[in-house]
């Protein structure tokens, strides 16, 4: 009897469950749609707790129940669980990552507003609540004397908060409408009063118009010019009228953000995740595009993200400011890494995964990144001097 009981217990402890649910997923046209999928590797029949991921709400350590009445939370938990599983499989199956294979169950926190504290795990609830963001947390030893236990690797998805245009820290610059109208005025040869008068009267002197026609023509020119001047004067106002007034980001519902954050954890064996630098953000962005299978990140998903996304096929050229951490989230490094495929070929992701030990979060682009690309390539099995030369030309053309 005892033997049977033991056998049953072993079976239960190793068995995993599937759960059919609705998530936000990309379709073939890269549009975000609600899709029914089967979540796998769940170890609980009642909670969002799997072998590799436990989805919790806020600071709680209890997994979210599958039957939660909060539909939005359910959608977020399902979406995050599904895409994290997909990202994990990519690192294991495609990149043969032993580190990822041996990662312990990761806690994924949804709707968490607290600032991360390296000692205390969660900063005080009243301290600068965070929204519209996601964050990868390294494991911590805790602070036992203060009753704070150790924690493992975690990913935090902040809640969405609608921010008004006027409250934005980095407002989109107005002025492009005004500039366009000014250019238009130049094109129609009315930049100065002299030229305007010339255009009104001299043009008609050459054409043999009747008096009524001439008056009509003058009125039309003057009227159109007046409208144009009004447009220039109110250019910024018109632009503001067309500009988005509210901004938000629901990071737990954007698949590429989930891939990006998981990549930070997957590369954390070599690249420190404590600092947000152009190199580690660029690497995370690159693998996010590979997992999603599209060069765009967080685009075409206006329902959940109204900020600018990223495009790996951007044509940005190197500028010194891209080296600073203030530009960590610019897509320049992503563009450089993605473009390597045109030189190295389809296994660029494997190549870049091998490259990670030679860079860290504090590496710069112009020296360390370029050097590690070349040095890593020199060590590959398919090394060819010509490809090395092509790599150097490619990096030069990127302005590095």
């Amino acid at each position, binding site marked *: 009897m005892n033997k049977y009981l033991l056998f049953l217990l072993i079976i239960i402890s190793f068995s995993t469950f599937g759960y059919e649910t609705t998530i936000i997923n990309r379709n073939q046209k890269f549009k975000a749609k609600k899709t029914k999928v089967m979540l796998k590797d769940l170890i609980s029949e009642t909670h969002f707790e799997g072998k590799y991921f436990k989805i919790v709400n806020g600071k709680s350590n209890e997994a979210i129940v599958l039957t939660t009445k909060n539909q939005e939370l359910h959608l977020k938990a399902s979406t995050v669980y599904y895409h994290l599983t997909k990202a994990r499989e990519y690192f294991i199956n495609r990149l043969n990552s032993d580190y990822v294979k041996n990662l312990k169950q990761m806690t994924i926190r949804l709707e968490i507003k607290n600032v991360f504290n390296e000692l205390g795990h969660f900063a005080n609830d009243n301290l600068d609540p965070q929204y519209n963001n996601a964050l990868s947390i390294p494991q911590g030893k805790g602070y036992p004397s203060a009753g704070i236990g150790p924690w493992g690797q975690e990913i935090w998805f902040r809640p969405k908060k609608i921010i008004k245009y006027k409250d934005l820290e980095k407002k989109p610059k107005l002025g492009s409408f005004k500039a*366009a109208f000014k*250019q*238009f005025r130049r*094109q*129609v*040869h009315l930049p100065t009063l002299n030229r305007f008068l010339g*255009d009104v009267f001299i*043009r008609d002197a050459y*054409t043999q118009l009747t008096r009524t026609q001439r008056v009509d*023509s003058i009125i*039309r*020119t003057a009227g*159109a010019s007046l409208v144009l001047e009004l447009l220039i004067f109110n250019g910024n106002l018109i632009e503001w009228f067309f500009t988005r007034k509210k901004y938000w980001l629901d990071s737990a519902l954007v698949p590429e953000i989930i891939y990006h954050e998981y990549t930070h954890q997957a590369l954390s064996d070599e690249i420190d995740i404590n600092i947000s630098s152009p190199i580690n953000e660029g690497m995370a962005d690159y693998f996010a595009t590979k997992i999603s299978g599209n060069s765009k990140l967080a685009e075409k998903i206006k329902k959940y993200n109204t900020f600018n996304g990223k495009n790996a096929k951007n*044509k*940005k*050229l*190197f*500028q*010194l400011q891209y080296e600073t951490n203030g530009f960590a989230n610019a897509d320049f490094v992503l563009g450089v890494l993605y473009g390597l495929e045109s030189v190295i070929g389809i296994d660029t992701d494997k190549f870049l995964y091998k490259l990670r030990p030679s860079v860290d979060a504090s590496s710069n682009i*112009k*020296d360390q990144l*370029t*050097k590690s*690309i*070349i040095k890593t390539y020199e060590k590959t099995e398919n090394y060819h*001097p*010509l490809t*090395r*030369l*092509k*790599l*150097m*030309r490619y*990096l*030069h*053309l*990127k*302005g*590095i």
Partner: protein
Amino acid sequence: MMTKQLTTFLFILISLGFLSERAWCIDYKNTPFLNKLEGKSVHFYRKTFFGRWNFNRRIEKFSKELDDKKLEFIKKTFIKNDYICEEKLLTKLNKLMEITDRQYIRRTYYLYIIRINNLIDDVALGNYLNFNKVFPSVNLSSFNPKRFTQKNEKPLRIFSLRSKSKQCFIENTTSFFGEFKFNKKRIKTFLKNSSLKKFEKKLLLRAFKKDLYKFQLSNKKYEEKLRTIRSKISPDNTGTAIDWQKSNIISRPVDELKTSPRVNLLKKYNAFQIAIMNKVIKNFQQRAEMASWLNIQIFDTNNNLFEEIKIESPTEVYRFCIKLFRKEMSEIKINQLFNNTVPSFHDFLAASYEMGTINHDFLEELYKIEDLWNPKRTKWEKVKVWASITSQIASVFTPPPYNYLISFGLIAIEYYNRKTETASYEHSIFGDIK
């Protein structure tokens, strides 16, 4: 001056020293101009749609006449001498295809088909085509040395003897006209007073009028030059023979050259010059493929090293190699051996490909490097400039408010096709390499 000449001489010796005896395993016996390097012929490019359509149509049509069977016959029966003398190939082709002198287009396309099958290359094809324009066939059977017994007919006797000894027509007429220092009046007077028949006089006069003697590189000379170049080709570093590949880069038409880089190279430069240009590319290739980092040492006035700068950035190494390469190319221009010629980048490319220094892939990479110096404008960019100019002019003559529409269109075009930003390279020691 003396030192400079000696340096040049030594440089040539060193260049050629690297190139040990041949590894060019080519069938010289019967097809001296066998094409192993050129891709699509420079003679096959047509600028207009109609031109391309007509070319393809005719190739298809005449390929049915000069079919595989006949091409095989040409391969088996035509000997080296048939290719070397332009008139002989044309005569044999006329006979094989049973065409008359008047069937110019047919003959031209038969020559194209021979080129498509790589039995000849572009230099040889160019010579045949040019000769075809002047003489579809040459009959010199009446030129018997015994006819010219008079003392003043010695040039004709020599001409006849040479033609009997199978010398090529171009070389023979060039020697003949050389007797008269290529003076038109003297040649005319001589021919008038000679015992030649009317059609014979006409033949020689036509050869002179059509400047046959000015042929930059006749097939005879070309064959000699080719032999010299190929005798200098060495196996690659591993000792294996070079894997020759055909490339469109060296056989495509280049506007400034008015021909292809390879044809231009072979017509303009001798074997020594080609070897020197090849050496420059070889140096660049070695540097570009092997250089890992740079070390700049700064000395004071007492020759003491006081600063050392290590440059490890791969892009800086690359820029240095390119700049040095460009400097070496410019230095060639002042080399005494290149007195009246200014070699272009295309010449360097063609020279190294001809000498087997670089393979097809490296040639492509070098070709792209030229884009760094002379960025090419795309068709759309060219169209945009013209559309913009035309619309701006139109907007002046169009009455308001319709001119506003044109201007709005212009702004829209410019907005959506803004100039891409240029890199500043402010962080670089060597800067941009344009």
